[in-house]
Every structure is written in structure tokens, then in C-alpha cells.
């Protein structure tokens, strides 16, 4: 190479490599093994380092950032406990295919394997929960490894990648050479779908009488929401979405059936049961969606489009697989259909669906003067016009949000789906808020999950992020209580928090947030207004809601639509 390359130490190479990747923000926490990097970060003017309060928070922030933007989220932590604290976030990103790169410090190379101070085999620990991981063994490999890490995390089916960097690698000096492309023999994602298969799919669409689009997070990830919307609107085919698919198609559109699955709408699940053509787009037939796989859309011809071949046929056998990037596949499908459109009249199909809609609408008691979570969410949706970025935690409030908040944009619904990680919302909303400035970011947690990462409130306050933190406080681990109620004879074992919850307003104030609380439905609009208008920093609103409320409809785990519960049933029926 004729070009001259500057000599740098590993720490500088690390930062310069991030710059080459276009990274301008990282979420981190210092410690012995990464002191070299922190030393250089101090004077670094091109990377904004966000100091978190717990490394799990950093991982979820990177996830929130990545989900809100589609860019790679970056984490930097020290060895041992710093690294192990990120494990939950990494597993979460793996399950929901979120592109993050986690950089961990490691003990010096010559101490690896010696049970050295703050040593943990983080590469071994995270092997089953990363898309790939690396241990840097030579400083000369550092830049190329970082290049590969970003490439792997962000291409194909995205996912977390971990890079473990022994302390001596950060001190050693070498020439900085950042490769401009990567070549990995064993990694060649398929982007364009097989044309013959796409033609067959178009034919199936033309023939179907009761088709249904079953849309997952893949559509959001591949930025194929426009293509999906065109496909639905041009054909008049109904759209149902998974938890991660929400936002890819406007819920206010007449063609939207809302979410399907365990807590999906009755009509979305009935449509799934009765369709004759199921078109799965970037969805993975998760057990929370299918219930009993034997009966799931059992008479339908099934088409599955996914970039990941392992997603195909994994849980449910499909008739027509198409491996490829959804944006490309849908574009090609639209071209096919432009030549020879779908001309079927779906009036009968829609009247079936509308009948199911009338038979079992989403509803809640709203006349007894008591405050319910559903009411808060309904008002929030109306008052923000479905325009906010909403980040939920895990539990009843998460499911109610899918039912009552009308998502109209991709990347506006961020939640932990695959792993179901309580404590996700607070840090993930912070990560999103660093990227999203033109729309409000609202975090919604239960009283239980909020306490799992509430230390990050101070991170939001420190950076003056105008995040709206909502706690739907039902004084219970509500979702667990619901299962105890339905399947364990109302034995509320260790789920009652009513006597031991902290004073959330005081907590929030102590962490530098403005805070409010109410249990009165009449005050909801006022508080939401005040919350939305406050932009000087984070604000927290606690809504004290009734504890007995349950999420319905519910298809019990492993059940089929025949087992659906629309209200509380005799628990003995299901035990």
C-alpha cells in the first residue's frame, strides 16, 4: 500500500474504527480493562459517550437506539462483571434481531484462563446469544474485526455481535488500516428472492378467496413498510401484525386487523384460523402467535418470506418459502401484480371479518369511576394522535398498549418481544430519545418492571432528555397475577406489591425528574397534557390503576382459537 497509515495504539484504533463506521454515540461504563479507551475518549470530539448507571441499561439503550433508527447501537463495558451485566440485553437483542455491537474489555492476553481479577469468559458465555462474537488476539486484527462486527450485526437478519478486547490489545501500537470491505466466506445473506417463487406467490394471491397478510418485525427492519402498504391497499387484503410488526402498517387503516396471537384481537385470530392463504412477511411463527401449531391457519396455503432460511419451516411447515430481503421481494411481487393484478372481490371475506369484529370488540369497563390502564392508553393514543415513539416494558400494560395505542409508523413501537425482558422500557426509551428529536418518546412500564432499571432515570435527567415515563401501577406483577388467577386457583404467590412498592413520585424526583400521580380518570387528560408539554427534561407520571383488570382476549398458551377467553372463565376448565 502506497498510502501512509498512522501508527496508533489499540484504543485509538477502536475510536477511529467507530468513526469509520459512522458511529457518533456509544453507551458505556468504565472499568479497569477499558481504561485505555476511556483515556482517549476524554479528548475525543467525534463520539458522544453516554454514561449509564448499569451495564444492562447500556445494552437496552443500544437496542432502543437501534430499533428507533435502524442503525447499529454500540456498547462499551469493562471485563468480568461489566461484561456479564450486558448479557440480558444481548440475549434480548438476539431474540428480537436487533443490530447492536457490544465491546467488552478483557484481562490481558497472557492472563486469560488464569481466573484473573475480573475475568469472565464472555465469548463463551455469549456464544449462544450472539449472531457472532470475536476475541481480538492481535492488535493488527482489531480494525478488521470491528469492520466485520458491524457488517455482521447490520446485514442479513440483524443481531448482536460481541467483540472482546484484552487490555494489552488496547495499548499495543500498530498502523491503522481500516478495510473498506469485508469478505466472510461463510456469510453471504440472500437478498433477492427467487423469481420463480415470487411468480408463484403472485398466482396464489390471484387465486385466493380469503387471503391474509401476517406481518412481523422483518418488514420494519428491511424498511419495507411502503411496499407492504401498497400491496395491501392495491389488493384489499387484510393485514394482521405481530408484536414486532406493529407500526409497519397503520392501525387506523381499515385494512388493519390489529395484532394477532395470545392477546391479539378476536377478529385477527379468527381471520388467521379461517384464511385460505396466509402470507407471512418477516414473521417467525412464534408460539405466542401460533398457539397450537397443529391448528394454526390449518387450511391455508402458506407463503413465508424471510431473509433467514432457518426461520422457514421452523415451527410451521409452509407451502411456498421465499428467502430474501422483504423490500426486494415485495417490490418484485408488486411488479408481478402490476402486470396482472388481483381482481378478486373480497367482500364476503370482509363481511366475515366484520362480523367477528362486532361479536367481540376490544372493550373495558369505563363507567364506575375507577382508573384503568386501558383508559389511560386510549387517551394517550388519541392525544398524541398515534405519533409518539412508544417503548413498553413486559406485562399486562405491554399487551394493553398493543390493543389501545394506534401505531401508525414503523419504528414507533419498541418492546421486548422474544425474550420478554422486564426492565427494558426505561433504558430502551433513553436510547431511542438520543436519536429521535422530532417526535415524543414515551416509556410505559408496569410498577414491577419499572423497578428493574429505574436507576437509568438519572441518565435521562443528566442528559436532559424530554422522555415521558409512564408507570401503569396496578400494585401487582399483573401479568403473573393474571395467570395465577386463571390457571392457579387465584393463589397470588409473591405478586402483590401493594405494600412494598416505593413512592414512585419521590423516586422520580430523587432522580431529577418532574413527577406526577393520579388515580382519578377525570385527571388523566390534564396530566397527559402537562406531561406532553414539559420538555425541560424527563417527566414521570404514575397512573394508579385497578389491580383486578385482566388482558382479554386471551388464547391460553399452546391453545387454539377454540380455547379463546374473552372474559374470566372457570379456572378449572383450563388447569
Amino acid at each position, binding site marked *: 500500500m502506497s498510502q501512509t497509515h498512522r501508527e496508533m495504539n489499540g484504543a485509538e484504533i477502536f475510536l477511529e474504527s467507530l468513526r469509520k463506521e459512522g458511529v457518533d454515540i456509544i453507551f458505556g461504563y468504565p472499568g479497569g480493562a477499558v481504561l485505555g479507551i476511556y483515556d482517549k475518549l476524554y479528548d475525543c470530539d467525534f463520539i458522544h459517550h453516554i454514561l449509564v448507571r448499569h451495564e444492562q441499561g447500556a445494552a437496552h439503550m443500544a437496542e432502543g437506539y437501534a430499533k428507533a433508527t435502524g442503525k447499529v447501537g454500540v456498547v462499551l463495558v469493562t471485563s468480568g462483571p461489566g461484561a456479564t451485566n450486558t448479557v440480558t440485553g444481548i440475549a434480548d437483542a438476539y431474540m428480537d434481531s436487533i443490530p447492536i455491537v457490544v465491546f467488552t474489555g478483557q484481562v490481558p492476553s497472557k492472563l486469560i484462563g488464569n481466573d484473573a481479577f475480573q475475568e469472565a469468559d464472555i465469548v463463551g458465555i455469549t456464544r449462544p446469544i450472539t*449472531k457472532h462474537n470475536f476475541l481480538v488476539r492481535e492488535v493488527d486484527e482489531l480494525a478488521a474485526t470491528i469492520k466485520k462486527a458491524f457488517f455482521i450485526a447490520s446485514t442479513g437478519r440483524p443481531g448482536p455481535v460481541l467483540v472482546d478486547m484484552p487490555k494489552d490489545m488496547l495499548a499495543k501500537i500498530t498502523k491503522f488500516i481500516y478495510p473498506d470491505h469485508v469478505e466472510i466466506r*461463510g456469510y453471504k445473506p440472500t437478498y433477492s428472492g427467487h423469481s420463480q417463487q415470487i411468480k408463484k406467490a403472485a398466482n396464489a394471491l390471484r387465486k385466493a378467496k380469503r387471503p391474509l397478510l401476517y406481518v412481523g418485525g422483518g418488514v420494519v427492519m428491511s424498511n419495507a413498510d411502503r411496499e407492504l402498504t401498497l400491496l395491501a391497499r392495491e389488493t384489499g387484503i387484510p393485514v394482521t401484525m405481530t408484536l414486532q410488526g406493529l407500526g409497519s402498517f397503520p392501525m387506523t387503516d381499515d385494512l388493519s386487523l390489529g395484532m394477532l396471537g395470545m392477546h391479539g384481537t378476536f377478529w385477527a385470530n379468527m381471520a388467521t384460523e379461517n384464511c385460505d392463504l396466509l402470507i407471512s412477511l418477516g414473521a417467525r411463527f412464534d408460539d405466542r402467535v401460533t398457539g397450537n401449531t397443529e391448528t394454526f391457519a390449518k387450511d391455508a396455503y402458506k407463503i413465508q418470506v424471510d431473509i433467514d432460511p432457518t426461520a422457514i*419451516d421452523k415451527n410451521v411447515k409452509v407451502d411456498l418459502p421465499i428467502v430474501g430481503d422483504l423490500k426486494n421481494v415485495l417490490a418484485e411481487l408488486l411488479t408481478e401484480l402490476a402486470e396482472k393484478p388481483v381482481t378478486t372481490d373480497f367482500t364476503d371475506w370482509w363481511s366475515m371479518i366484520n362480523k367477528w369484529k362486532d361479536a367481540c370488540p376490544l372493550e373495558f369497563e369505563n363507567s364506575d369511576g375507577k382508573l384503568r390502564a386501558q383508559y389511560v392508553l386510549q387517551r394517550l393514543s388519541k392525544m398524541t394522535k398515534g405519533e409518539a415513539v412508544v417503548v413498553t416494558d413486559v406485562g399486562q400494560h405491554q399487551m394493553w398498549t398493543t390493543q389501545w395505542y394506534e401505531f401508525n409508523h414503523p419504528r414507533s413501537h419498541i418492546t421486548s418481544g422474544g425474550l420478554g425482558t422486564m426492565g427494558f422500557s426505561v433504558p430502551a426509551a433513553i436510547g431511542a430519545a438520543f436519536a429521535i428529536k422530532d417526535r415524543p418518546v414515551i416509556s410505559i412500564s408496569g410498577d414491577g418492571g419499572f423497578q428493574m432499571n429505574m436507576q437509568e432515570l438519572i441518565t435521562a435527567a443528566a442528559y436532559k432528555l424530554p422522555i415521558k415515563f409512564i408507570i401503569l401501577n396496578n400494585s401487582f406483577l399483573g401479568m403473573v397475577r393474571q395467570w395465577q388467577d386463571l390457571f392457579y386457583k387465584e393463589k397470588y404467590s409473591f405478586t402483590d406489591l401493594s405494600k412494598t412498592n416505593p413512592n414512585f413520585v419521590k423516586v422520580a424526583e430523587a432522580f431529577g425528574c418532574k413527577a406526577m400521580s393520579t388515580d382519578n380518570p377525570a385527571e388523566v387528560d390534564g396530566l397527559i397534557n402537562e406531561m406532553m408539554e414539559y420538555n425541560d427534561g424527563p417527566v414521570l407520571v404514575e397512573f394508579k390503576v385497578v389491580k383486578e383488570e385482566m388482558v382479554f382476549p386471551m388464547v391460553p398458551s399452546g391453545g387454539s382459537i377454540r380455547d379463546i377467553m374473552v372474559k374470566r372463565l372457570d379456572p378449572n376448565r383450563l388447569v
Partner: protein
Amino acid sequence: MKKIISVLVENKFGALNRVATMFSGRGFNIHSISIGVTEDPEVSRMTIVTSGEANILDQVIKQLNRLIDIIKVIDLSAEHHVARELAMISVNYQKGIRSEIMNICEVFQGKVVDITIKSITIEVTGPPDKIDAIINMLTPYGIKDVARSGLVALKREEQIIIKPKKEVTIS
């Protein structure tokens, strides 16, 4: 159903572990796994014998392909292939049975690789059922130890006519 899968993998730190982790994490069976470097020093070949229902075996192959370090996955069960295993069998050695053992060894085209006053060790290669058979035959004499390599296998090339090699004369 059993399947023999041949896997070309980057000869990198942790590659075998990645495969083993994936099998155990997903609850797939491994009957045997053998690994060694190929003609390219940066690439190793793993031969994996696994079993399961057809749909599971499909997933095994896809999941192997998904691992970044894996370059190529060949389902040998779906192709013509040659599969061999090597075993070393150490048998109690008593007076008077030596020729019997030697006979068995010969029938199976084995080799005696070690002999002491107490034991005799035989090396034999072949398809796994042949190894099973010799072990069966030797069991009555008292087997002390068995070490089996696990299967190694290669796809059979298309039959082609091989031209006679030119004779090389060394002057």
C-alpha cells in the same frame, strides 16, 4: 433417521465449540463428531452424525449454515459418499486364543498395533457396522478398551475415466 453431515469450517478459535453449543442449545443429537484440517490449512472439515425427524434434520442443516464460521454444509446422506471409522480395540490376551483373535483380525482386515503379555490391541477401519461387528466378535474374549474415531466421510466424485499417469523416470 440418521444423517451424515460434512461441514467445512474456518479453522478458528472456538469454531468446534460454536457447533457443539448450537447442537446442545437447540436440543439436536450428536452421535459423533470428528474434525481435522483439510488441504487448506485455514479450513477444517467436521463430519457430524446426527439423528432426528426429517424436519429437525432440515433445521440442523440450516442452523449450521447460519453459523458465521461455517463455510459449507453438505448433506452426505443425500449423496453418494464413502464413510469410514477407525477403532482401536484392546482385548484381554490369554494363552491359547491368540490365533483365534488373529483370525478375527484378519477377516476384518485389522492390524495388530500393540501386544503385551496381558493384552492385544487391534486397529480396524471401515464403515461403522463393520466396527460394530468386530467388537461383537471380540467381546467374548474380554474387551478392555475401545476408542472409536467417529465417522469421517467424503462425497464420492462423479465417475470419471482417469488417464494413465505418465511414468516418472528418475535419473
